[in-house]
C-alpha cells in the first residue's frame, strides 16, 4: 500500500494544526506550508496526492497554487478551504480547477470524509 501524501497550506497555525491532527493516519504523510511561496516550492518538488489550500495566503493565493498544480503532469487533487462564504468564491475555486471546496468554519468529520472520498477516487 503506497503512502498518501497531503500538503496543508494555511497561514493560520492553529488551522494547520487542526487539519493535520484531524487527518493524521497511518500510511499518510502530511506536509505543512505557512504561506503561498512555501506551498509552491513543495508542490513543485514533492509528489502530492492531495493539496488542502487556504485561499487568503500571503505571497500566493490558493487559487494560483491550484491552477499551477493542475497544470502539472499527474496533477494532485485539490481541496480548497475558504473563509469566503459567497457563491462567487466557490465558483472561482472550481474555475481554478479545485476538486472540492469547503467553507470555513468546517466540520472536522466532514473534512475527514471529503479527504477519504477524494483519495479513494484518485486510487
Amino acid at each position: 500500500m503506497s503512502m498518501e501524501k497531503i500538503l496543508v497550506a494555511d497561514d493560520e497555525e492553529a488551522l494547520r494544526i487542526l487539519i493535520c491532527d484531524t487527518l493524521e493516519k497511518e500510511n499518510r504523510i502530511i506536509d505543512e506550508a505557512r504561506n503561498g511561496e512555501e506551498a509552491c516550492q513543495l508542490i513543485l518538488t514533492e509528489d502530492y496526492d492531495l493539496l488542502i489550500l487556504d485561499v487568503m495566503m500571503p505571497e500566493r493565493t490558493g487559487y494560483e497554487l491550484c491552477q499551477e498544480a493542475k497544470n502539472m503532469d499527474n496533477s494532485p487533487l485539490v481541496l480548497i478551504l475558504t473563509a469566503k462564504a459567497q457563491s462567487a468564491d466557490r465558483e472561482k475555486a472550481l474555475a481554478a480547477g479545485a476538486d472540492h471546496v469547503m467553507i470555513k468554519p468546517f466540520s472536522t468529520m466532514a473534512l475527514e470524509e471529503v479527504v477519504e472520498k477524494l483519495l479513494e477516487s484518485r486510487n
Partner: protein
Amino acid sequence: MKLPRCLNLLIIILLGYFLLQTGIVVLQLKNIYYVLGLNILFSGIVLALLYMSWKKVFAPLRELADKIDKMKDEQLYPVEENSDFSYEALSLIKAFNRLILTIKRYNEELKEKNHQMEKLNSEYAAQHQELEENLQELQTTKHNIEMFAELGMVMSGSRLELEEIAQNAIEFASFKLDFPLVAIYTQDKSGYYILLASRGIKGAVERFSAGESVMGAAVLDKKPIYVSRPEYGAARTETINGEEILPYQGYIPLIHREECQGLMVLASWKEIDGNLIEYMSRRIAVNLYNAYLHANLLHTYEQLHEEAALLEELSAQREEENEHARRDRNIAVALLESVEEALFFHLQDGRIYVHNQHFARMTGEKTPDNRWDSSLNVEDVMKTIIATMENPDKLSETMQQLKRDPDQTISLNIVQQEPSFASYEVFTAPVHDIVEGQDKILGRIWTFRDVSREYEINAMKNQFVSTVSHELRTPLSSIMGFTELMLSRELDSQKQKKYLETIEREARRLTDLINDFLDIQRMESGRVSYEISKFDLFEICEELAEVFQTKSDKHQILVRGIPPIMVKADLSKIEQVLNNLISNAVKYSPAGGQVEIELSLENEAVHMSIKDQGLGIPEESLPHIFERFYRVDNSDRRNIGGTGLGLAIVKELLDNMQGSVWAESKPGEGSIFHVCLPRAKDNEAMSKQQMDRIKEENKNE
C-alpha cells in the same frame, strides 16, 4: 388920332410960354415993352414953328396917312408911280417903305422863329408827356416794388401754416392793395379746393372742384381770369345773399412748379393790376407749397417720431425679452451644470442641442462657448461613448431599440474601459413639449450618472463584509474544529490542554475582533462622541507605560519630555490610541527592547513619538498599515495575533480630534509612530487631578 398929337404940340407951346413968363419974372424985366416984345417974338417963333411943322410934318403925314389908308395891308407904297407926293412925303414914304421892308423882314424872321419855337414847344410838350408817363410808370413800379417788398416781408413773416399764409395775404391785399373782397382757396387731399380765408365776402363759396364755375375754370387752365364790368361803376352792388359785386374781379390760380396750389379771388372798384396780383399769387403759391411741404415734412417727421418712439418701445420690449431669455438661458445652463449627471439633449434630427460640462468631460468633447445648438450629433457622440465601453453591446442595443421605438424610456448601466472603469447609470427618455402639448416630441434627453463612487462604496462594503466574514470565520474554524476533535476523539491530557489553549486564544481573538469591528462601525456611523478637554498627555503616557511595564519584563517602557504636555482631546479616546500604539510596539518587538515615548511641544501642536526596537514594517506595507484589516504578512509575525483594525482605529480617532498619525520604519530595526494633537495653552490647562476633583465634586452634588 390927330387930336392927341395937336394937344402935345399945344402943351409944348404952353410950356414954352410958361418958361418965357418965368424967364421974365426971373430976369425982373419991368419994362412992358420988353415984355411985350418978347411975347410977340415968342408968338412969332411959335407960329413959324406951327407952320413949319404943318408944312413939313403934319401935311405929308396926313397925306401919307390918307394914301396909306387907301393902300392894302402889307404893301409898299409905290413911290415911283406916285410922284405927286411931296418931297417930304416921298422921303417919309421911302423911309416907311424901308421900315416896312425891315419890319417885313423881321416879321418873316420872327414868324420863322415862332414856327421853330412852336415846333420845339410841341416837341418839349411831347417829351414832357413822355416824362410824365415814365414818372407815372416809375411811381407805379416803385409802388409795386414797395408792395412786392412788403408782400415778401408779410409772406416770409408768415409761419408755414396754410391759414396764416392765407390770412396774411388777404390782409395785405385788403389793406395795402385796397381790395375790398378777397378769398384764398387751396387744394385739399381729396382734390377739392377749399376756402382757407376770406375778407369782405359774405357767404363765400366754401368748396369747389376744378372746372366748376369761373373759379374752377381758372384752376383748371392754370391761368388768371379777369372779369371787368365797368358798367357797374364805382357803386357797390349787393346781391340778394348779401354778396357784393364789384366791377373788377380777378380769379388768379396760385401756381408753383406748374402745379396749382390754390386760387385767389379778388374784387375791386378799380381795374386790377395784373402784374402785382400775379406776382402776389406766385408768392402765395410758393408759400402754400412750402406750407404743404412743411406740413408734409412735419407729418413725416411726426410719423417718423412716432415710429421711432414705437421702435424704441419695441426695442425696449425686445431688450427686456432678450434679458429674460438670457436670464432663462443662464438659469437653464446653470441648472444643467449644477446636476451631477452628465447630460445632453438632442433634437429629433439627432442634433445635440445642449449638453453640460460633465458630459463634455465624459466624452472628451470640448464644451462650446455657445452651449446651444452645437454641431455635435447624437449618433457620432454615441459611437464615441460606445467605443470606450467595457460592455459596448448594451448601449448599441439600446440605440437599435430606440430606432425601432423612439418613444421609449430606458435605463441601463454601462462601465467604461480602463483606466477609468467608471460606471454610469444611463437614463434616456423622450422630451415632450409641455407647453405646446404632450403629443409633440422635442427630442430626447440622455443622462449619465457616474455611479463609480457608489460602486466603489458598494464594493468596499462587500469587501468589508467579506473581510469581516473571513476574519471571523478563521478563529471560528479553529474553535469549532478543536472542540469537535475533543468531543469526537480520545485525546491525552497534554493535547487536550493544547487544544483548549488554542480555543481560548482564538475565542479571545474573536472577541477582540468583534470589539474592534464594533468600534470602527460606531466611528464610521458617527455614533462616537468626542468630549474634548484639556489634560496633561505626559501624565497619561506615564500611567499607561506603567500598566504595560507590569505585563512584560522583556521591554523597557520609557516616557520622555518636560511635563506638563497639555493637549486638547478626548481623554478616553487618547487612552485607546495610546493603548493600541504601545501594545503594538510591545507586540511587534517579540525579542523585547526599549519602547520610548517622547513628548514635545510645538507651536500649536503636541508631538508624540512611540519608538520600538521590533520587527519593523516592510517599506511596501507602510502606506497600508492604517487601512482596515491590513496586516503585514510574514513569517516573523505569524504568531502575533491581531485584527488588522488597531491602527485603523487609531487613525480614525485622531482624525476626529484634529490630530494626525504617521509612521516610519526600518525592517529589523523597529518602527516609530508619530502622533500630533492640538496643544492646549498653559493658562487653560487643567491637570487630570483637577479634573478628577471636579468630577468628584459633581458626583457628590
